[in-house]
């Protein structure tokens, strides 16, 4: 392809996106578009499956049968999200094994929030309420993103996430309406998850490297700081409703802007966790790698069996 032809294709491509047309896997796309999408979709998929771990930690200890079943179902949904997202990613010409390899080797990232430990039952509430809440704010705009398979996966994901978010809030509400010990547990969970949740919306705009290009491709529709403000504005009244105190002495409603002002985020902590030095990075990665490695013989068996069966069929047919 000549340089001119390439430029032409790129122009047509950008025009399609500008017209809000969906790009499908078989369509021509710039290599950078493909790579950026592989990076983002797989990162998202990895976040789902690593995100199973802090919640999975409480399945055996859930305090009632109803909560146990709901938690199991929620963690299972996350596995399901992982599945759609890996599938969407595979349409871009990368295999699931390669994607796992990137995760296990540390080359691919996942959402840093899952590197914090889940230390009490109230964390199941806080994760649903805050973490899923922040995730939805990140993800809703992606239902209209330009890459078709990703956009469609997100529609499904967002619907379930918002169910999870309500469920998390309801766990918090039950605790806050419960005994003083339960309310303490809820407040403690909010204290620990609040700041990491704010960090989930990504670094501040001036530190964010991918924003401009991502806005053009509709992988982003708002900047990180806008999303963060939206999350805070939405969450503070919910905390009030619960009767919990957001652990930020600088938090205050600004009558002029109509938004909440808030205190400084500890970006050193953020970067430390991103770089692999959070409280549970090692544990999370070990859990994933162990699951994968302990499962090798199982996957091999399934493959060997399928091949034997296929051969038998062929033998019969001939």
């Amino acid at each position: 392809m000549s340089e001119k032809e390439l430029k032409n294709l790129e122009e047509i491509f950008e025009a399609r996106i500008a017209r809000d047309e969906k790009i499908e896997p078989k369509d021509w796309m710039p290599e950078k578009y493909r790579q950026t999408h592989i990076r983002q979709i797989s990162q998202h998929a990895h976040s789902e499956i690593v995100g199973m771990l802090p919640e999975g930690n409480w399945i055996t200890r859930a305090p009632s049968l109803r909560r146990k079943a709901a938690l199991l179902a929620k963690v299972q949904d996350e596995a399901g999200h992982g599945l759609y997202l890996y599938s969407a990613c595979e349409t871009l010409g990368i295999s699931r094994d390669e994607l796992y390899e990137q995760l296990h080797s540390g080359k691919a990232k996942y959402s840093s929030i899952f590197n914090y430990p889940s230390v009490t039952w109230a964390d199941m509430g806080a994760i649903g309420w805050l973490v899923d809440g922040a995730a939805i704010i990140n993800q809703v705009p992606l239902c209209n993103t330009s890459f078709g398979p990703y956009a469609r996966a997100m529609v499904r994901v967002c619907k379930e996430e918002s169910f999870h978010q309500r469920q998390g809030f309801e766990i918090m509400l039950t605790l806050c309406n419960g005994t003083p010990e339960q309310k303490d547990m809820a407040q403690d969970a909010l204290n620990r998850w609040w700041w990491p949740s704010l960090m989930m919306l990504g670094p501040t705009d001036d530190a964010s490297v991918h924003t401009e290009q991502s806005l053009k491709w509709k992988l982003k529709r708002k900047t990180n700081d806008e999303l963060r403000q939206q999350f805070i504005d939405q969450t503070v009244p919910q905390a009030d409703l619960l009767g919990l105190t957001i652990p930020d002495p600088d938090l205050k409603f600004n009558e002029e802007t109509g938004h909440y002002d808030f205190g400084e985020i500890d970006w050193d902590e953020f970067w430390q966790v991103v770089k692999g030095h959070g409280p549970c990075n090692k544990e999370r990665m070990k859990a994933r790698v162990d699951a994968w490695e302990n499962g090798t013989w199982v996957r091999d068996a399934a493959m060997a069996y399928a091949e034997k069966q296929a051969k038998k069929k062929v033998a019969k047919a001939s």
Partner: protein
Amino acid sequence: MNKENLYNYILGIADNSLILAQRLGELCGHGPNLETDIALTNISLDLLGQTRSYYQYAASVSGDSKTEDDIAFLRLERDYKNVLLLEQPNTHFGYVIGRQFLFDVYHLLFMQELQKSKDETLVAIANKGIKEVSYHQRFSSDWIKRLGDGTKESHDKIQEAIDALWRFTDELFDLTENDNTMVEAGIAVDVSKLKEKYYKSVAEVLTEATLTIPESKFFTRGGKTGTHTEHMGYLLADLQYMQRTYPDMKW
């Protein structure tokens, strides 16, 4: 037959579902791939659903203020009546599948008979559960075949698991005194009559999976009378943790 007989009979069935669901719950997020992870979680969810129906019924039978959660979380180890097979640990995926398969074949036969009970609520639970359980059995049988007739390594691993778990199978067909009373009342399944069919079905799948049917005639029992293996205490310590640590609260 009195109320207490019925109550105990329901618990005997329900505890099986609870304990297996709990064991499967440990695996969530740690499966060999996402599809299997999701499938095992599904089974756990089905079993938990059954557990809740049984305990809710038991709670209503008991007539006191007990809830399903009191029954699930606040008994002493000796009062859980699940069979020993189901409390055995998730040593590796072969044990998970072996345990599931050896139970599913029984569970399906059991549910089919429970549909004929004189107790309408149990019949309703069985009618709903039987579809789930027949899916479980298909799932675990398929995996027995995949592992048995997969690679050398998988063959050895699933054979090892079947050999190790085999000694817990005979207990499935024991009748406690309470069971006998309930069989006479036309409510309970006479599980002793399922034995032949069970071993025949199990043998068919194992044979198709190129596995050897264990010959041992020595069996371990005790779960139905509440004498559990040493694994049970640790399972309960986790299961009961929240309810024991924060008594009398709503969640």
